């Protein structure tokens, strides 16, 4: 599953970067994540819960940040396991200052699904990707505004 998107946030690049590097904020804006605990340098344990229509699943696993180039890019690696299937995603996130108050955030990556999710969920996967992307940016905007 390809994950791509971009969005302009009304905040300076430094602030956006700081927020992304802040575990508590990251936990709030990544859709579904309910808990993020630091387990090492740029390594976290993540618990998430996805409820989408008929599907509701609890996932757990790791989240790591790599290839960090402040304040412009890093890669978010997520590995989440559940009884209905596992998701492993690697997403490269880029920040670009449009002006002093506006930052374009874009990402590109791929999520690999396995198990029952991969086998039975194809019909709605693109919708899931779109929805999670939208949620991410909405959450981000809300967090900036708060």
């Amino acid at each position, binding site marked *: 599953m390809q994950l791509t998107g971009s969005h302009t946030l009304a905040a300076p690049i430094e602030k956006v970067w700081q927020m992304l590097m802040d575990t508590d904020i990251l936990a709030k804006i990544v859709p579904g994540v309910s808990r993020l605990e630091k387990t090492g340098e740029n390594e976290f344990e993540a618990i998430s819960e996805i409820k989408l229509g008929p599907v509701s699943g609890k996932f757990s696993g790791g989240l790591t940040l790599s290839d960090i180039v402040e304040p412009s890019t890093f890669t978010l690696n997520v590995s989440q396991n559940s009884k209905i*299937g596992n998701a492993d995603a690697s997403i490269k996130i880029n920040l670009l200052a449009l002006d002093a108050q506006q930052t374009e955030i874009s990402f590109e990556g791929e999520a*690999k699904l*396995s*198990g029952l999710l*991969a*086998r*039975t969920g*194809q019909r709605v996967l693109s919708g899931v990707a779109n929805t999670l992307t939208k949620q991410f940016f909405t959450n981000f905007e809300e967090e900036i505004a708060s």
Partner: protein
Amino acid sequence: MSNKYIGKAVKRVEDKRFITGKGKYTDDMILPRQTYAYIIRSPYAHAQVKSIDISQALATEGVVAVFTGDDIAQSGINGVPAGWQVNFKNGDIMKEPPHPLLVGTGSTVKHVGDAVAVVIAESKEIAADAAELVEIDYEVFDAVVNPVEAVKEGAPLVHESAPNNIAFDWEIGNPKAEVDEAIANSHHVTSLEFVNQRMVPNPIEPRSAIGHYESSSDRYTLYTSTQNPHLIRLLMCAFVLGIPEHKVRVVGPDVGGGFGSKIFHYTEEALVTWCSKQIERPVKWTSERSEAFITDAHGRDHVTHAEMGFDKDGNVTALRIKTFANLGAYLSTFAPAVPTYLHGTLLQGLYTTPKIHLDMTCAFTHTNAVDAYRGAGRPEATYLLERLMDLAAHEMGVDPVELRLKNFIPPFDGVNQPGYQTQVALQYDSGNYHEVLRRGVAMLGYEEFRKAQAEAAQSNKLLGVGFSTYIEACGIAPSAVVGALGARAGLYEVGQVRVQPTGKVSVYTGAHSHGQGHETTFAQVVADKLGIPLEDVEIHHGDTETVAFGMGTYGSRSLAVGGSAIVKSLEKIIEKGAKIAAHKLEANEEDLTFADGKYTVNGTDKSVAFGDIALTAYVPHNYPAGLEPGLDFSSFYDPANFTYPYGCHIAVVEVDKETGKVSLKRFIAVDDVGNVINPMIVDGQIHGGLAQGIGQALLEGAIFDENGQLINGSYMDYCMPRADDLPMFELDRTETPCPHNPLGVKGAGEAGCIGSTPAVVNAVLDALWSGGFGHVKDILMPTTPERVWRAMNS
């Protein structure tokens, strides 16, 4: 002798139980003290099992046992082998890593669905709940799913013992240099690269198996939804579990369809048998559909580059093929034979092609095993030939019917004219190939169709016609031949006829019916040969305890081989009966004629009925001296050759130019399956085969993503034909008897599935060509609306 039943559309005797809900399929059984197995399967296509923690599951109330691959390995069990060995071109031995029943700690899973642990519990609910408590840690590796990619340098390895993922390579036909030269010298060469996609057989009954070990007798019974119980017993006992065969009974009760996928010995069969011994209770496993998608063997999956050369008159000069066949992660029972002996040997088709060469590479990938699926190799050969024929006709601007007629092998009956020796090892038995095509074309109304097509070409609904002619090698086969080709079993069949004292007849056959209607067709043969009512005959099959031996049902072999075995026994019965009759009638045996159920002294009205003979055989008070009592014979029939059904299939489709959607408007099939015992059942077999072949052309196909996940692994995504996807079929047949078996039959089970696929795809292309899209050479199967739309807009 007049036939009362043979050749008649006798209604099926087995139907009564099925239409009243009294069929007995494996999952319908609940044995006393039965337990339920839930198999935990890898969600990854390629990963190492780092650790397995079963403690929580084991502690769950109602859980009887949990086993892992380590337990299996400790009891010295290696895994399931292939049933056929095909060696490399250079003579090297085929790579054959066994398929473990459960993948143990430290080992790698090789496809999504590879089994890792089994939870056995008092109920299926408890088993399913406890399975969630088993914690398995995997380290995931890259996977490879495509056979062309798999053999490239550096591709992820499926088995360390198989470098470059090559199980074996193989070739057949004329020397490659001769074929290269003939292609080079051809006036026209039609070349095509195409994929024969992966199919999921999908019998509607998911597989099920119950292992039942009884310590009192130290005996095992395995109930399993299989097409050949004896072969399962042979493989499981001798090669997997090491149990003496006489201690094992395998029963294949009513089986809800197979289409090839239930021929093979699956790991689950050995697993429930083994587990049952460990816990001394019956263990049942029934596949769920989503589980079936990732554990049943799939079919087809070839990537091919083919070239067909023609001279300036349109005669085929040569055929050159390079194919990569995907065998999946493990070698399933028949897997090595399917792309080779069941495929390469059919590349002559119905044509006089003088030079043929196939170069085949068989690859391991991180996917389910690929094995025989209805037609098994022969549909792949037919698809290749018939797509090339229609494309060549299009490219050369000649009529596809004329091109075929020009290149057909001339008629021969195999008696007065010899069989036809092909360039690819086989000798065809008999055939009149021109006739089936002429009949099909007449049924179509070819000229009128082309007029209608020309009119439709101006509209948004294009019309197309596709032709296909096919031949298959069925009724496998002479044991000596298949043995020389690498089969690890003989391919004869067993038929036992037991005449009861009252003249009723019990027949035991090693063929296995899972929809084919053996209980009726075989009874028709027996009733007519003995001149007794059909009701007096009962056919028994599917139980190793009652049937001496057998090779099961697949490859359209049941009647040709199994039926012939029964006929051999009937001949022995009649011959022995003649001795008894001669004694009773005080006549010479040579002066007797057996017909219509009685022995008559020639030229007199003195006769004795078959029932009297039967009674005398068992109450031998007044009996020929030196003759054994009883009337019960068993025969092993080993055929002299394959049988060669053939036919012509014609599809008419409508293509919506705006959406690319293909609607099948008509389907004409003229088949020659040799003599026909029950035309109703033969037509039914053809219908079913057509639906599956059409399904491959229009709807079906497994899709693996690059990580080895089957992304359409449910009926929500894997499209199969429904009632409203198909028209009524228009059938006709010719009957050219098979010259080398006593019934003259050739086999009908796969025919429909072999000819129909290229007919439909050719029709789609013909529609496009008529609509001004002459540049389109191929559309991947299934020809989904999007693919057709893209082809038109490419």
